[in-house]
């Protein structure tokens, strides 16, 4: 594994703080892969995906009730404990019911390094930015609506940072993101072979680090690394080919990849926020850049979103797109407890995987702790053994 990817994946806070120190630039934290982080990049900010700690909560449990997403609560806890004190701003989209409340919780509970700039009761240099992301990601009026939302967001940023964000800046961001996407796609292509060109865990590390390193830099390193792997004929350990569906796979629950490998399986593709959903959707460079960014952001098939189709099947379509051609033998759904969107869609997707691709599905309910992940080992072993026959 490339040293840089490993460093960021294993010790993200230190790695990002060091980058900030070395470059003198700003860092913003954001939630969710549908966030238009390209706009932050265009403003010369490093956007980093906020994740949690997996440790018992120290502060957030006094504010957020327990029967809710443990990941979100842990992220908030990390913020309240000061682990994100190097952030110059935070962006919260209207993704799910829990995340969008992070706008309130983060704003009122996490100490901010910069002072508010109050004018007539309004903070003109907010620390937490909210993006009113639609819930239906297709439709005749959704793009004009969302472009307007992003324009407002961009203006808030410009005023906060006291610098313009020009179309050229945005176009540069679009180009850099596309370069990283093409290397990421290339990496996934390499996993179509049997055995796969790199292991699930390696792919995760590369994907996770892409959410912590400036995209142009990440693209450059990744290209070199993939060239090296290809010329060495590198192959991942063989295993039953597994499709992993889940949410934010981070340093807490990514051990599931290792457990799968140790049980005789290998993750070759996925439906994850720190996985295909973080890079799969292209930015159309023929469009005005803000619109291209809006469309990319809307194109991100988050489980909580719906579409204008009479009988929506966009989630099945995404699963199919990321699973076909990979010769999947089994699917593992790793869903965090109380994740309504994923729990609600699961039965239908499970049935479709069985009827359309004829693959068995294992459902694992996670609690966002490493101990919880370890407890899944016996079931993963049983599942893979069941497939082997």
């Amino acid at each position, binding site marked *: 594994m490339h040293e840089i990817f490993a460093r960021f994946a294993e010790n993200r806070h230190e790695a990002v703080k060091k980058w900030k120190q070395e470059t003198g630039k700003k860092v913003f934290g954001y939630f969710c892969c549908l966030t238009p982080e390209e706009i932050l990049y265009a403003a010369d900010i490093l956007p980093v995906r906020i994740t949690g700690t997996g440790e018992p909560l120290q502060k957030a449990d006094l504010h957020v009730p327990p029967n809710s997403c443990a990941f979100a609560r842990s992220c908030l806890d990390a913020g309240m404990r000061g682990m994100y004190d190097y952030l110059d701003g935070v962006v919260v989209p209207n993704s799910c019911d829990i995340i969008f409340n992070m706008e309130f919780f983060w704003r009122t509970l996490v100490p901010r390094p910069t002072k508010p700039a109050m004018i007539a009761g309004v903070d003109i240099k907010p620390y937490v930015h909210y993006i009113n992301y639609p819930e239906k990601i297709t439709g005749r009026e959704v793009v004009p609506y969302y472009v307007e939302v992003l324009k407002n967001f961009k203006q808030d940023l410009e005023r906060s940072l006291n610098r313009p964000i020009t179309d050229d800046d945005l176009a540069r961001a679009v180009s850099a993101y596309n370069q990283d996407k093409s290397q990421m796609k290339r990496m996934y292509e390499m996993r179509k072979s049997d055995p796969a060109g790199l292991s699930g865990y390696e792919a995760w590390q590369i994907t996770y680090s892409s959410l912590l390193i400036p995209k142009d830099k990440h693209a450059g390193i990744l290209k070199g690394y993939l060239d090296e792997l290809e010329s060495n004929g590198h192959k991942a350990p063989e295993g039953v080919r597994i499709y992993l569906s889940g949410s934010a796979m981070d340093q807490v629950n990514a051990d599931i990849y290792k457990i799968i490998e140790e049980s005789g399986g290998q993750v070759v593709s996925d439906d994850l926020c720190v996985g295909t959903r973080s890079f799969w959707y292209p930015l159309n460079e023929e469009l005005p850049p803000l619109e291209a960014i809006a469309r990319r952001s809307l194109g991100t098939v988050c489980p*909580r979103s719906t579409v204008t189709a*009479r009988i929506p099947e966009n989630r099945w379509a995404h699963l199919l797109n990321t699973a076909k051609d990979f010769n999947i033998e089994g699917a593992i759904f790793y869903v965090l407890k109380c994740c309504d969107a994923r729990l*609600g869609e699961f039965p239908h997707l499970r049935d479709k995987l069985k009827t359309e691709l004829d693959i068995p599905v294992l459902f694992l309910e996670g609690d966002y702790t490493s101990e919880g992940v370890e407890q899944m080992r016996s079931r993963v072993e049983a599942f893979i053994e069941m497939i082997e026959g």
Partner: protein
Amino acid sequence: MEEEKQVVTKGSQKSLEVARNAWKFIVQDYAEGHAHKKAGKPVVWSCALVEKELYHAMGLHPFYPEQFAALCAVRRKTPDSVKEAVRFARIAEQAGYSSDLCGYERVSTGFVLNGDLEDAPLGGMAPPDMLVTTSSVCDVRLKWFEDMAQRLNVPLFTLDRPERRFDGIMQYPKPHETRYYRSQLEDLLSFITEITGTKYDPDRLNECLDWGYKTNELRLEILELRKAVPSPMGCADGFATMYPGMYCSGTKKAYEFYRALRDEVRGKIKAGKGQIEKEKFRLLWYGIPTWFNMGIFNYFEPVGGVFAYEPAYNPHPWPPRNPKDPLEEIALRTMTIGSTMSTTIPALLEQCREYRIAGGVLAYLITCRAIYLPSLEIRRALEKELGIPSVLIECDLVDERTFSEGQVKTRMDAFAEQILKKHESGKSLNN
């Protein structure tokens, strides 16, 4: 508290006649819905916070899975069987729907999976010609209705209401937000026309909106009247009478219902009569009630406690009628609300002052995250800003399997003691 009865799940005793008879309105509405379907007319399954006047204007009869689930929470097939809500939730859970999911979703999904839509209370919900949901209130209804559409193979329309956040004063929506929501309403009307053939008639919509508007005004008046001391209308009455306003807005019958209710409340105030003889303290119920156990609202009466106010299902002031452009009016009406703790909490504090609340019972709904998420912040704010104690009641909306009577009783008894102590020490309870 030695004489206190066990908290056994049971129905509530209502203090108002109209509230006691409200169930007849519901039964009648279901019967009309079934007759509508039998006559070959279209039926829609929908949910709260969709503008019902549109349905009535387009000749649809709506059923509401969430309300149906609440109905299932109180009904049994036979005196010995479990509640219908439990029967249906089990069917859904066996098909793979997690028991952490919203109770409404599990119950209505189980009802659909059961295969026989008539094997249910009140003849069930008539088979739908379409499903319409909204992004307002929670995300769950998006996936839930998607799933039902896939299972029933019936077309679905989702109204996308952008989730606004306010910081400080409640403001009118920005033009692009209203424009977007209005486009949703237009698309909904096209969708209904495509399926049913009925064309949109603005005059008909205006007629329904007139009724809806008048009904809303009545409900706002009733809400104001409830501030009186002693409390003329309690939460049991409130929850029993929310159906017409929530689900039949736009009809004459809903208006007449609230007119009768308003008159009865006025009468009570004139006669100086409250819910109970000796009212000692007034309580807030935050959140959706434990539909399977409405008797909880009478729990404190033996010691002089009444539930005086509940924020769930309440009307809010609408922008004035705009007959020239009713769609714009509806868009504006819906876009002036949002979900944010920034306004929920200060609003609740204000309401506690107005209704002279001495304590809060917060429904700690383990499967309804949208409502339950602010609970701890609310409890903190009530204590810090108003010195009001509150108690958390862990429960599901409709699934009584997770309800622990013993635990709830213990908490409520301790809570009542806390309030009565304040009362005896002479501290003002009525703020």
